């Protein structure tokens, strides 16, 4: 390091804060961040709490063990599709075709298993490859030709519907009764296995955060106070224990056939969440995605291959959409020409935005998809229980999406007014 300052001069950075000293101060700092428009997951968590209270009063079956398990299983494919969209949204792009990309991938899987007697491994691999190929073409068109992603993916939205019609024929559907695939949404982990998995995740998370905290303190890097770290660990542990406890209760209406245990789709979502949180938060690729989303020109000047980042996020989006399509096929027990259609994509975009991912790019996390996906699934589930006409469902979901996008736009304005990032 070149030493280019004389000793007499004041070095402002030498005395910069490495810790927001007390728990109280960091709570205050959080409040002022929220006021400045840096709300993160707060609106969606509050929304979730409000929805649970409202639906609980509206229908006493809402908080039953059976319905909560249903709700979590329903949310699986929405959450995965929302997670697929997060990297694309981080670049300030959009993928309108993600729903049908998942549908087509699921069609490929179904046709291979049912009509060509392939194993599920081959079929799933082919579905993922289908997704990756769709994403590659979209990415190339957006980055190399410079066609806006809105238009490219709108074209794919239409084109892919044609592809799935061609694959399984007009009005047809393919039944998915392969054990592993249909087990994702329909089978449960053993009670003991569920508790062990929850415990492993809690201990792993706690160990990781505490080790990280100690290392930061010992190297006098910037760190949060210990109380905040412990608070986060307790919050994660509490959520996992409650969810595991509820799902490990018997939820069957027929006393002769008890149903208990965590549906496999839940650990599947957790693994994806951990993986994408790691990729976005801890790797060079993730850092570059945020950089391109924040200021593409700055990223280019820093020597980042912006085109490659663009192509990679569209490939990831379509491949993850394929996973979402597979989970949806497992839940529905079939693949049809309308798989991935309807409001699937808007639910997923809504989930990501409600969770706190910005449509303007540069801001968002994989965990946003989980919280936002739960909000969307709760609305669909709760309104379904109330046996409302489906037009109300559309109106409410549309309204929530609009609300979330408005909150995003307003908080962005507040952020630039208060100079927060």
């Amino acid at each position: 390091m070149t030493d280019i300052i004389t000793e007499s001069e004041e070095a402002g950075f030498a005395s910069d804060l490495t810790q927001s000293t007390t728990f109280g101060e960091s709570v205050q700092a959080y409040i002022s961040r929220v006021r400045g428009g840096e709300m993160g997951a707060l609106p969606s968590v509050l929304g979730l709490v409000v929805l649970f209270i409202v639906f609980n009063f509206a229908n006493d079956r809402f908080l039953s063990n059976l319905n909560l398990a249903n709700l979590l299983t329903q949310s699986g494919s929405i959450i995965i599709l929302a997670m697929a969209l997060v990297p694309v949204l981080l670049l300030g792009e959009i993928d309108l075709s993600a729903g049908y990309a998942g549908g087509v991938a699921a069609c490929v899987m179904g046709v291979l298993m049912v009509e060509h007697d392939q194993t599920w491994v081959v079929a799933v691999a082919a579905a993922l490859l289908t997704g990756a190929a769709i994403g590659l073409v979209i990415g190339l068109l957006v980055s190399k030709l410079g066609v806006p992603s809105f238009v490219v993916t709108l074209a794919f939205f239409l084109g892919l519907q044609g592809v799935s019609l061609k694959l399984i024929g007009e009005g047809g559907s393919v039944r998915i009764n392969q054990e592993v695939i249909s087990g994702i949404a329909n089978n449960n982990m053993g009670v003991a296995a569920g508790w062990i998995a929850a415990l492993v995740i809690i201990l792993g998370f706690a160990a990781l955060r505490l080790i990280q905290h100690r290392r930061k303190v010992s190297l006098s890097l910037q760190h949060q106070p210990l109380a905040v770290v412990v608070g986060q660990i307790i919050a994660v542990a509490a959520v996992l224990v409650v969810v595991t406890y509820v799902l490990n209760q018997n939820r069957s209406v027929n006393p002769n056939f008890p149903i208990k245990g965590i549906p496999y789709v839940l650990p599947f979502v957790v693994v994806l969440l951990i993986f994408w949180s790691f990729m976005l938060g801890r790797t060079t690729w993730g850092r570059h995605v945020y950089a391109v989303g924040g200021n593409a020109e700055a990223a280019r000047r820093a020597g980042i291959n912006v085109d490659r980042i663009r192509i990679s996020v569209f490939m990831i989006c379509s491949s993850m959409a394929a996973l979402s399509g597979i989970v949806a096929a497992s839940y529905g027990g079939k693949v049809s020409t309308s798989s991935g259609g309807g409001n699937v994509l808007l639910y997923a975009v809504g989930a990501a935005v409600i969770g706190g991912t910005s449509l303007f790019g540069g801001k968002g996390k994989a965990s946003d998809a989980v919280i936002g996906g739960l909000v969307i699934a709760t609305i669909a589930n709760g309104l379904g229980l109330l046996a409302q006409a489906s037009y109300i469902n559309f109106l409410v979901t549309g309204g929530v999406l609009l609300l979330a996008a408005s909150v995003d736009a307003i908080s962005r304005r507040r952020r630039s007014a208060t100079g927060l990032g």
Partner: protein
Amino acid sequence: MSDSTPLLELRGINKSFGVAHVLHDVDLAIYPGQVTALVGDNGAGKSTLVKALAGIYPIDTGEYVFDGKPVNVHGPKDAGALGIEVVYQDLALCENLDIVENMFLGREKKNGIVLDETTMESKAREALTSLSVRTVKSVRQSVASLSGGQRQTVAIAKSVLWNSRIVLLDEPTAALGVAQTRQVLDLVRRLADSGVGVLLISHNLTDVFEVADRITALYLGRVAADVATKDVTSRQVVELITTGHSSDLDGAAAPSTTA
């Protein structure tokens, strides 16, 4: 002054965009330990010249000589590898990232595949500590919350972090207040005194006369003069910028190589 051989020399550079011939046989020399000011009116070719130096625009003809050896620069990465750092007017920082993340952008330190945040944070802090900045709370502050002067400092500190040999500063004081301009100019001087070759692009002749050792004036894509700052007056430089020559400047056309 420390050295009489230039660290970087451009000889006879030509650059056209279609029919627009922007740079005509431009010669430019940057010396270690000196601040060379590049002045010229709007459209004189300053930005094009800087982008050619930084490897963003390929040059049509001419020689790019670094450390006495001719080199080929095909992209920003090549220029970076030579130790050339550009601080752009619009700063090229990502507002959604924090100071550390911006300073290491594109050159992140890694442990295997995981980002090495501890090393990056301590190195960034070390680099920033060597510069004088007030009122910045933390290196983990997002760039969106920094003032113009602080952002400029972060951008310049990046070049300290990477032990750059040449730093190109594009209008570093254009958007700054009086006190912040003072800080940045001090910083530029210290940067040069540490042995770095600095190229300062500026409209502001007060700034130029304050920190520059040499002045290269561009006029309509040609070098109007390359002179030591102490040999010229502000009025003569204004003439060079606006008319391309200065009547009472002895031997302006023949650039002297000593400062």
